[in-house]
């Protein structure tokens, strides 16, 4: 094959098949992938752990499991241990009989088999199933400057932006192959030039903007380009503390799913913006002003694809991406207070808060867990997106404040305050 990028002797030898046919194919895949995007070389993956996006044992993904077997049989397993996106099923989450039958016998029939493959390939541990692997409780938190081979879009944008690591928006399987090889092609968000902003976002709202709504507006405007956000730092208290990280987790997931953002800079907050400031902005950067009216316009334009637009919600999902520990705690307090004000003792719509197994474990060790349970809110490690991404979910009116869930499913978006109102006082 014709190779455009510069390979080291070792990389060329792998490509020539000196370490076996399977590893040669892995190298060919990554070299061709890099060549398409003008990569000049392959660079070592430096993070301690990897993270893989494909966590579901879907019958439809049988070819992926066959490919995994080829890698395992050839000993071409991950050079790093890795965490995974969330599991697709949890008996804690309300479902009807038909859903149970379809999930178990038609959709996720390969779950157990697939998790067995993952253990052979390098899974960190049985709890390492979450889209927020970067949480302290989970322990897959890359360092600034680390080169990653991740694919989960919400984790990639968080790692690039909030942690200052470097990772492209890869596809599933490419994430694993980078880790098997120990190298990824150097292009896009791995390079200094590729991390410069081609958009300036001016936030001029009169109150703290809803993270998921602001992220949606930014994502839809800039698509895959890099935005530099001014005016948000004052709403984040001027520092990157746990609350700001939680806010940016949700903001970033919305930019990545409503657009295809892999990196953003928040003036005076995110590490590269603090270090380099406006040197990160390209000369020809475009400007997008976001005020209260613009956020309202974005909100009003979301289509409602429920068959009956006036249906009473039957389920509420919070936690796409998975909630942080401080988010679980603050929501416990908010739900309690709102129930008390309404004269209710339990939520009036079945409500599921999702978080990483290790975060749920830490939450369980606080007094808040029992208090949340008392409100009737269910906690789960499930992936709400996988729960809903099937033909049966179109029949069920689900509400959420996740813009990612809204984008990929028929879930209806409401702001955090509206969700709180609905689950504690009654839906529209």
């Amino acid at each position: 094959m014709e190779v455009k990028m510069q390979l080291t002797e070792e990389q060329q030898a792998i490509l020539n098949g000196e370490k076996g046919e399977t590893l040669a194919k892995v190298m060919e895949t990554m070299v061709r992938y890099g060549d398409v995007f003008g990569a000049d070389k392959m660079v070592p993956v430096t993070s301690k752990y990897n993270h893989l996006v494909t966590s579901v044992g879907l019958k439809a993904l049988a070819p992926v499991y066959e490919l995994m077997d080829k890698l395992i049989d050839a000993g071409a397993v991950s050079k790093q241990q890795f965490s995974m996106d969330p599991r697709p099923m949890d008996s804690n989450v309300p479902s009807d009989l038909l859903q149970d039958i379809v999930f178990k016998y038609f959709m996720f029939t390969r779950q157990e088999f697939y998790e067995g493959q993952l253990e052979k390939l390098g899974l960190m541990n049985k709890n390492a199933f979450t889209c927020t692997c970067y949480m302290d409780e989970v322990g897959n938190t890359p360092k600034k400057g680390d080169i990653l081979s991740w694919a989960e879009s919400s984790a990639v944008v968080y790692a690039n932006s909030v942690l200052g690591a470097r990772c492209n928006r890869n596809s599933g399987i490419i994430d694993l192959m980078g880790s098997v090889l120990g190298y990824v092609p150097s292009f896009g968000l791995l390079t200094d030039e590729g991390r410069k902003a081609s958009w300036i976002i001016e936030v001029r709202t009169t109150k703290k903007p809803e993270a998921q709504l602001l992220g949606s507006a930014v994502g839809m405007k800039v698509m895959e380009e890099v935005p530099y956000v001014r005016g948000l730092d004052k709403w984040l208290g001027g520092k990157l503390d746990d609350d700001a990280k939680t806010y940016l987790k949700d903001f970033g997931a919305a930019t990545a799913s409503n657009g295809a953002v892999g990196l953003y800079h928040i003036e005076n907050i995110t590490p590269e913006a603090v270090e380099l400031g406006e040197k990160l902005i390209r000369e020809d950067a475009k400007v997008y002003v976001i005020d209260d009216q613009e956020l309202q316009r974005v909100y009003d334009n979301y289509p409602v694809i429920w068959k009956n637009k006036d249906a009473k919600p039957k389920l509420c999902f919070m936690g796409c991406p998975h909630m942080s520990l401080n988010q679980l705690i603050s929501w416990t307090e908010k739900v309690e207070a709102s129930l008390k004000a309404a004269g209710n003792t339990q939520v009036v719509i079945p409500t599921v808060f999702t978080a990483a197994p290790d975060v749920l474990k830490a939450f369980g060790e606080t007094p808040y867990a029992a208090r949340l349970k008392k409100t009737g809110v269910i906690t789960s490690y499930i992936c709400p997106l996988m729960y809903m991404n099937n033909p049966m979910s179109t029949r069920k009116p689900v509400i959420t404040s996740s813009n990612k869930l809204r984008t990929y499913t028929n879930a209806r978006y409401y702001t955090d305050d509206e969700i709180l109102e609905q689950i504690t006082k009654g839906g529209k």
Partner: protein
Amino acid sequence: MKTFKGRPVVPGNVTAEALVSHGGLNTLASFQKALQFGDKKATCGDQNNTDLYGKQMFGKALCLPQTIGSTTGGLVLYCACSMGRQPACMLFSEPIDSLAAAGAILSDVWLEGTPLPVVDCLGAEFLEYMKDGMTVTVKEDGTVEVS
């Protein structure tokens, strides 16, 4: 006949009937139902794509700007190719995105033959010109002839 010239991402020769998506193709939303429930025609299941929803994608020359959506997109495309439910080719008006590139390259490297020829950078005019049902001939060097 009109001719367009793009970049062959996965070179191949094929002739097929055009199917046009003016918006980005959400790969997961478009293929999941077909792959999950044994639809050999690969009927597009993405309700948000008004150009493609309900139409057969298998065997068509799929003309589009880019793919969008979940980063599982590449492996979904790989699965479609492995299960023989892929389009005849994918023709991108814009530079290909990382998810579609991954799916196309994975299929070419790991599956037999050339299951999915791909050409990108065909330009905005290409997508404006294309209509469903036109006959498209793709050549290895990235030439796309439309009649």
